[in-house]
């Protein structure tokens, strides 16, 4: 390890430090000064403090040009990682805004601090190209998320979800670690670049295959791809809304990016091809199958659900499938597409959970409860419309641009349209997904409200935040260039 200045390290990790510090400060603030204050004030203060921290970190990211690589890939900061970190921070801010209206726990400081810690973990996850650091940050993230999931002590569902999450997570973490150790054994290094060299030298090694499968299983759990998705429906339904929102949005962003890096950087040589008629063994066909199964299972299972959160969970599985297509294509274009897709998807999901959090007081969970929402809370319903249609992939919303780009990237990689089968499957499944999203919207707009149901009032701050998110989804859909250009420039510089 070459000696690098500690100052350098601090400079490069400044945003993470800011967020972590904010978490600590928040904890101190809540445990010391606000012990006696009302719950509402505590939540709001925590929210504001946390947001300030995130905003500060954003400012640092946006302005500073601190970039570099430390300790042989343990810390890699370039424009792409900075962009993703900014996205993570935006999502964290939104989640915190939804949390600001929650009242389900008295441990306010701990809750918000955990959110910030989870965010720090994610920020670190995306800025590394070292297996061990990846594992550590994933564990850091997972532990925070387990606790966040089980935070509602009054809800049995929450505890059950947390336990399930933990058990699955622990098991998959073990598998992931085992796979990583195998990779170390093959290559003698834990950094992605040397691993890539070793893989290129002996792509057909059976131990390599085993290692790939295990790493894939570990990550598959994280991104909730079928058949490793069993935890997702329970967590989405049982966890407190803020936690679920975080799981559904930011952790997806970070995990997918890490997955892409590991496989396309580290295991490039053993990629193989999933093209129709041009099959060659490697991880690409494996991921293609994973993608296909996720799309099928997620979308088809979502049709039968009666709880909105479970619909969102299964649709998340389906979306994971679409995103995996970008990984199968493993090109620069597809990375740009993936980042764009996962970010817009996360935005729409966080928005949907925001609507759910605003409705928490009304005991609205099953689809039937949404009846007549269009009359009871017109603004809220309209935002929900935007978010769900973006998830369905209707132009001119952001989800469509993302899907379009992913499909273009997938088909562009070869002349013979090898991945056409995946794209066609994705399109068919999109039609299916449109059905269940429309079911929810139908309840909201077409069905009459239950007699006696009153209008729902939403706090101003939440409403503003929701409108802002919806506006962002629309703008990113109508003018995708804003983000696309930045991402593609970042990808270009990152992989020169």
């Amino acid at each position, binding site marked *: 390890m070459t000696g690098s200045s500690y100052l350098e390290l601090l400079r490069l990790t400044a945003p993470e430090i800011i967020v972590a510090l904010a978490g600590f400060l928040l904890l101190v603030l809540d445990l010391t000064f606000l012990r006696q204050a009302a719950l509402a004030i505590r939540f709001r203060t925590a929210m504001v403090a946390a947001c300030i921290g995130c905003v500060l970190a954003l400012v640092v990211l946006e302005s500073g040009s601190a970039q570099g690589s430390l300790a042989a890939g343990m810390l890699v900061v370039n424009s792409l990682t900075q962009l993703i970190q900014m996205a993570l921070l935006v999502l964290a801010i939104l989640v915190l805004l939804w949390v600001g209206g929650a009242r389900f726990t008295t441990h306010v400081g701990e809750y918000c601090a955990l959110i910030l810690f989870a965010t720090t973990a994610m920020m670190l996850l995306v800025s590394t190209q070292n297996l061990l650091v990846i594992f550590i940050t994933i564990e850091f993230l997972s532990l925070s998320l387990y606790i966040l999931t089980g935070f509602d002590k009054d809800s049995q569902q929450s505890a059950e979800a947390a336990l399930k999450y933990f058990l699955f997570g622990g098991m998959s973490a073990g598998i992931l670690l085992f796979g990583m150790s195998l990779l170390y054994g093959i290559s003698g290094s834990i950094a992605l670049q040397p691993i890539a060299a070793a893989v290129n030298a002996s792509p057909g090694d059976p131990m390599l295959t085993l290692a790939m499968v295990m790493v894939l299983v570990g990550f598959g759990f994280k991104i909730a791809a079928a058949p490793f998705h069993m935890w997702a429906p329970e967590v989405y339904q049982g966890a407190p809304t803020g936690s679920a929102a975080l799981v559904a949005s930011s952790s997806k962003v970070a995990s997918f990016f890490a997955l892409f890096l590991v496989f396309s950087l580290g295991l490039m040589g053993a990629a193989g091809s999933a093209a129709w008629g041009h099959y060659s063994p490697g991880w690409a066909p494996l991921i293609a199958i994973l993608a296909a199964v996720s799309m099928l299972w997620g979308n088809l299972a979502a049709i039968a659900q009666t709880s909105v959160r479970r619909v969102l969970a299964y649709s998340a599985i389906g979306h994971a499938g679409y995103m995996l297509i970008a990984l199968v294509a493993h090109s620069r274009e597809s990375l740009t597409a993936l980042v764009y897709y996962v970010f817009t998807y996360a935005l729409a999901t966080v928005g949907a959970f925001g609507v759910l959090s605003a409705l928490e007081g009304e005991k609205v969970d099953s689809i039937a409860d949404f009846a007549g929402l269009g009359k009871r809370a017109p603004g809220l319903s309209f935002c929900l419309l935007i978010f769900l249609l973006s998830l369905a992939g209707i132009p001119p919303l952001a989800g469509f641009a993302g899907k379009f780009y992913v499909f273009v990237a997938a088909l562009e990689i070869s002349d013979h349209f090898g991945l056409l089968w995946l794209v066609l499957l994705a399109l068919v499944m999109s*039609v299916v997904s449109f059905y269940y999203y429309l079911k929810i919207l139908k309840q909201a707009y077409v069905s009459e409200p239950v007699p006696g149901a009153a209008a729902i009032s939403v706090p101003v701050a939440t409403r503003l935040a929701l409108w802002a998110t919806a506006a962002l989804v629309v703008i990113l859909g109508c003018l995708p260039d804003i983000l696309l250009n930045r991402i593609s420039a970042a990808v270009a510089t990152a992989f020169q």
Partner: protein
Amino acid sequence: MLAWTIYLSFLGAVAVTLTPAKSPVVARVTALLTALAGLGIAIVAIMHADRSGQVITIVRTPWISHLGIEYHLAADGISLILVLLTGIAAVAGILFSWNIERRVKDFFALYLVLIGAVYGVFLSFDLFLLFVFYEIVMIPKYFLIAIWGSTGREYAAMKLVLYSFGGSALVLAGIIAAYCVAGQRSLSFEVLAHFPFPAHFQMWAFPMVFVGFAVLAGMWPFHTWAPTGHAAAPTAASMLLAGVVMKLGAYGCLRVAMMLFPRGLDPWGFRVLGFGSWQQVFAVLALIGIIYGATIALVQKDLKFVIGYSSVSHMGFVLLGLMTLNQIGLSGAVYQMFSHGIIAGLLFAVVGRMVYDRTHTRDLHELSRIPLGRLIPFAAVTFVLASMASIGLPGFSGFVAELQVLIGSWRSFPWMACIAGVGILIGIAFTWRALQATFLGGADATAAPQQAMPPITLPERLGACLLLASTIVLGLYPRFLLDLILPTLNSSLFEQLRRGAWR
């Protein structure tokens, strides 16, 4: 200036949502003014358009530069005609929805969004932009039917939307494939229409995109959404659905599938089940649609279903005209798009607004017991004239359209022209049956008590006159449209098509 048809419609939708909920008249008037503005712009544009077949570029700016997609609005003769149709149908639809009392603002707002998106499809000259507008059409369509429709509306709306979405999924696959193959970093029609796509690529891309659009055009056997959808939809929505939205599908077939992938229509070199090319396959499917739609309409008991199936039959003529692959057949197809848009609007207006809103029944047997011919003579005369137009009687626009399709068909598939003639005869039969039952029946049942019917209101009369005038003017003065269609078919955009299996 034509782009303002789109923008005004969307702005109008916003304006309508802002009108006070207590006085629905304001919402109605706002909507009507918006639609009239759109129609006015369309008429002015047509009058100023030169007849040389050139494309008039309206807006062209880079949009998603990363992918080379442009916000490109342009119009040639065919687009102008369809924009005019949309304008007429929009105004007529609003006039016929004057009596809606429930959630008035929402209705007109959704209606205007739909109109704006339809204008957008017809004016787009970039494939991505066309697709965006095409998809935007779906959402207001769903809600218009699901909220304000009649029996079975939720099921009908979902079926309709899922079929459309499925079709558009196929189209999207084709678009992406074309984009990747062309490798030009552009989705503009001008670029893609001249790009020589490899023949084997066109062989599968063409049917995929054609079928994707043809689903919305009601091609047999993907037409099953149409009768249920039309019957369940409220009057204005049916008028728009049958009148304009189905034409989106046909327009897509022509503008995208045929213009960009004309090699796909070439003979395969081998025969499967007696077919030797996609041209023959789709021509036969169109012909089946003509006969099937007419025959099923003949046995329907529900009046609106009769009209719904008649739409399927008439759209069959459009598709048959497209597949004749000669100038007069294609011209007939475009003419039929316009003509049927007006006529379907008329028929649904009479059946839905004038008859159903007053009698609350659509059953032919029950209707034949009410002497409607005497109670609402205006409706009777309108329906007679609409029927005459629908069966293709000379003097109305339908005749000019069917004439051209038949001539084109004689040239390409002579035996199909004869069968299409049979289709026309069946069409006459079911139209007559509907007319008899609805308006000419009650004269025998003088024993039935004659309930007083609300008279035909002024908006209804205006709407009916607008549509009747359109179909009669274009029946007697076809040059008005032909001067726009023919030069466009001769333009450079369709060059590849003309060089192919053109006869």
